[in-house]
């Protein structure tokens, strides 16, 4: 299948989209996809690793909660270009240049959803569990956490989708993935390369979103039939 010549009103042989380009460069596309997925997963994993202790601290008191949430919001307000270029020299253009900022951006979603999820348990449910002789740890693990899981996974879903989009800016500081190809296409004035990888980024985000929705349903079977959240 070949799209009818693409829209070749610019340069001959440089259509906005071409099936031929995709088949001819399938190896590059696979490598870039793998890099993009790896960078996304590493960033969100680091984000989650930081979000858990931060949420635990935030639950200690009202003041700490406000401080932690405000801190995450302020981090999120820092423009990505500034954050990433600032780390480019510090980490000598290693992967951390992009993983740290993206992890920081995912915090605002993850911490908020962890806190909201853990707060969703009704006081009656806690009282009932206590009446049944549950210890505090057991209440947390058997009552609070299971009820919080859907909200936490929903946060994870949002974080993954927005991180996939944000990884693209890594192309500016010599990071791999679709971003590198998009910036390369921009520098070489190659429409085909730029649009192909742009479309791939959107497709990856959609696929990740769908997969995480399935995960969300699979780990919360009792929610089946209820409205999706």
């Amino acid at each position, binding site marked *: 299948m070949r799209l009818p010549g693409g829209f070749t009103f610019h340069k001959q042989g440089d259509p906005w989209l071409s099936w031929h380009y995709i088949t001819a460069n399938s190896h590059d596309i696979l490598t870039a996809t793998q890099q993009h997925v790896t960078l996304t997963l590493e960033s969100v994993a680091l984000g989650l690793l930081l979000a858990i202790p931060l949420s635990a601290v935030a639950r200690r008191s009202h003041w700490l909660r406000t401080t932690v949430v405000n801190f995450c919001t302020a981090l999120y307000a820092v423009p990505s270009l*500034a954050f990433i270029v600032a780390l480019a*020299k510090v980490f000598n253009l290693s992967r951390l240049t992009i993983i740290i900022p993206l992890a920081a951006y995912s915090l605002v979603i993850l911490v908020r959803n962890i806190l909201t999820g853990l707060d969703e348990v009704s006081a009656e449910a806690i009282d009932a569990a206590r009446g049944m002789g549950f210890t505090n740890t057991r209440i947390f693990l058997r009552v609070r956490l299971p009820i919080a899981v859907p909200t936490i996974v929903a946060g994870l879903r949002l974080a993954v989708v927005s991180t996939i*989009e944000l990884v*693209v800016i890594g192309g*500016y500081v010599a990071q791999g993935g679709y971003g590198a190809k998009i910036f390369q296409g*921009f520098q070489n004035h190659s429409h085909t390369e730029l649009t192909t990888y742009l479309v791939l980024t959107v497709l990856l985000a*959609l696929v990740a979103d769908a997969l995480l929705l399935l995960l969300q349903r699979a780990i919360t079977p009792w929610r089946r039939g209820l409205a999706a959240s």
Partner: protein
Amino acid sequence: MRIAIVTPEHVNNSTWHQFSTWFTTGSNWTWNGTNGQVGVLHLLWQHVWISLLSLAICCVIAIPLAVTLSRWHRGGAVVTSLANAGRSIPIVGVMLLLAVGPIGLGTEPAIIALVIFAIPPILTNTYTGIREVDAEVTQAAIGMGMSRGQVMRRVEVPLAIPLIATGVRLAAVQIWATATIAAIIGSGGLGQLITVGYATQAYGEVYGGVLVVAVTAVLLDTVLLRAQGAIRARYGAVAAGIAM
């Protein structure tokens, strides 16, 4: 253990030294700048101008669109899919795409991209705000003889103001942050300190730019959050009063 001997040469080449030199050079902060480089004041003005223009265009498109969609039974689906699309399309990619397209480099592709991506927050919040207006309130307004247009202008939109304000705040913060990235495609603005500095390995300028960009972004976020609180306090009370 070897002890590094810090010679004056090392000190002069350190990033910190470059940064402090850049920071304390007064002419960097003026309009005209130093050595043919545009000054911070000029870049700040460009940044404000691009952001305000984008935000204005965005409001003009998104608010009437939300009002129209709120009257249509499938409006909710349209709003949700636009919001999801905005979340999964990389804005950097779109900017670069517009720049290699017929429009070329410069401020125009930047403003187009900024407007497109700031529509979802305003659209979603305005739509929700209008849909959340109590049906009894609109019924009462209709009972008083208001036309549908009057109900929209005098009842539904005013009651939605707290949420519209939330949407405009989110859009403004996002536009300010993303306008930084637009420097890559030659739109000017504060991001230019970072892009030009990075391209010429002038790390003093890069870190100066990072500082200015980060501080203004966080400041804008804080100020707008306060402003939104004030609007909520004022219009939220009106809303509560009418709803009673």
